[in-house]
């Protein structure tokens, strides 16, 4: 038969053993128990350590759940574009990772214009020396196929979307305009290969995303050609 022999609960009368519970006078403000020696301190430490480790393990799933998940804006998302639907001179805008991407079908006349030294003399970085594009599009047309330009349509000045102004004009938007892009916010200008003009606030060419051409008439934006690689986050200015 089990008998509880705790002396604190025993005693017939107030004159007997003390009922007032354990004596805490030996404790200092940090809860040490000098009268019970290092054993209790060790157990307290062990319990505390187990609780801290448990809390850390418990916190992991909550922080993990805040990490990005897949979807149209994910860092590995790709967008396919059918180029056969784009007429010469026409531009379409597709959304890739939440950003507008210009896909422009340049005419032979526009391609000749891109190589004209009268134009390149007016550009800040006509040879694409700044890292604003994958290495495999560092050429005079800043693209894989000359007739198709692919650029992220975000002005490198303050982030507006430049307007498409493809036709040459003597006066509009500036004198001797060869055709290109004009930003509505602060007047930055880019040619049809996304190269920035001098005399306007933007300093860098429009970024070119990684892309490949699975066939001659299709684009896969977000995926570099086989054996090549480009991390879009390494560009100089978005």
């Amino acid at each position, binding site marked *: *038969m089990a*008998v*509880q*022999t*705790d002396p*604190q*609960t*025993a*005693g*017939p*009368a*107030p004159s007997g053993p003390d*009922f*007032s*519970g354990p004596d*805490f006078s030996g*404790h*200092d*403000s940090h809860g040490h128990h000098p009268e019970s020696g290092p054993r209790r301190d060790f157990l307290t430490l062990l319990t505390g350590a187990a609780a801290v480790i448990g809390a850390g393990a418990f916190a*992991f*799933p*909550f922080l*993990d*759940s*805040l*990490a990005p*998940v*897949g979807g149209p804006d994910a860092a590995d998302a790709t967008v396919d574009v059918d180029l056969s639907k784009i007429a010469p001179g026409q531009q379409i805008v597709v959304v890739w990772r939440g950003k507008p991407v210009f896909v422009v079908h340049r005419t032979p006349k526009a391609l000749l214009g891109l190589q004209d030294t009268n134009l390149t003399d007016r550009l800040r970085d006509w040879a694409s020396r700044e890292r604003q594009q994958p290495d495999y599009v560092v050429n005079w047309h800043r693209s894989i196929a000359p007739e198709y330009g692919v650029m992220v349509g975000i002005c490198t000045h303050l982030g507006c979307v430049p307007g498409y102004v493809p036709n040459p004009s003597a006066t509009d938007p500036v004198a001797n305009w060869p055709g290109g892009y004009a930003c509505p916010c602060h007047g930055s200008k880019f040619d049809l290969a996304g190269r920035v003009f001098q005399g306007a606030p933007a300093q860098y060419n429009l970024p070119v995303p990684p892309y490949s051409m699975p066939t001659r008439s299709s684009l896969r934006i977000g995926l570099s050609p086989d054996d090549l690689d480009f991390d879009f986050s390494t560009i100089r200015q978005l």
Partner: protein
Amino acid sequence: MADPLTSSTTPAAMTGIPTSRAPASTLPDGYGPRSRWLDRRLPVISLLRREYVVYPTPRNLNYLWNFGALATVALAMLILTGIFLAIAYTPTAAGAFASVEAIDRQVGSGWVIRSTHMAGASMVFAALYVHTFRSLYYGSYKEPREVLWLTGMLLLVMMMVTAFAGYVLPWGQMSYWGASVVSGAISSLPGIGHPLAVWLQGGDTIGDVTLHRYYALHFVLGFLILGAVVLHVVALHVTGSSNPLGIEVKGPQDTLPFHPYYTSKDAIGVVLFLIAFAVLVFYLPGWLTQPDNYIEANPYSTPADITPEWYFAPFYAVLRAVPSQLGGLLLSAGSVLVLFAVPWLDTSPVHSARFRPLYRIAMMLLVVAFLLLLACGLHRPAGIWLALSRIATLYWFLHFLVLLPLLGGIETPLKLPDSIGRPVLPPRQATISTAGAGLPMPDGAMAQRMEND
């Protein structure tokens, strides 16, 4: 003496903080100057010390007194996981089901967060039901703890509404048809029923607007419950805990400081509770859920068998035990609401069922009736299950409306001990105990013996 913070004398004169009211800070010696500085301005250290360290607690609490703390732990888990689920959830009829699937399959660790939330609902109800039956058995609702009881019953009802609203959110077949059945039940109320249902669901049918409302309701109620828990705990700390003997604390000899005695006793319960919780989350995630709720809501096809979550099953059984739509609804709601009146239905001045031989039998039968109703709610209402649910429903109301008021006059209670610390020993037991153990029997232990007789 140069640093005023180290002085424990005349703090008002030295700090400029008025003391026209009694000082809220009551720290004893042994606390450093920074603790005192903070505590004079915001007495959190005093408060925690007074309510959770030196707090005098009856020295004879058994493990059934763990369940309030256990329910609080489960509630904390629900709120924490709920916030992170809300971040990943889409509250639209078109997107809800897919977003819940995405939480299970794509969101990092989303499966464990959702599984914890679902198991948490079961764990909190399990803890609350034990907690409630403990209060009923030991008469914890009696004077002076009537308001404590009322806040507890309010919490139970709030928890039920929250659980129901939460169950709608995954927008599976059970979510949709569960909401549909409840709307139908509300509609059956005479007069106000139909307008009330339309008002609640935001249209003539359950749809996108309804889901959005249930989402807001579920989210807000979680935090309102937290507030009601604060009220419940404040009410508890005003009167102090009840105890298995059901007699009030008469002095320091009857109590122990809350820390370390009940912090450690609660900690043991919490560890066991978390083990059971973890088993549900990691090994039995599908055990308490209905497979039909993993089929997206379809307003044109009702599942073959609509079964409620287990914690609603007793009240669902009452609903189906009555062959009348309105009658079933009223009795089902009444089976919960009658609990609010218990402090005034019970006429006996004796708290604990240990000293009430007839009430003790009645309480055992009440637990049996509750478990029977639980089982009946999970089975089709036919044959033996229908008969059992009717008998159990009858006893449920008989117990509260007839037995509780009458037993106070009929029953002869056993003699109560003089105090918690020194129970009066019946001579018979004292003789047996002393003879059996060959030792003088400690009084505190006799209380245990008497209960186990």
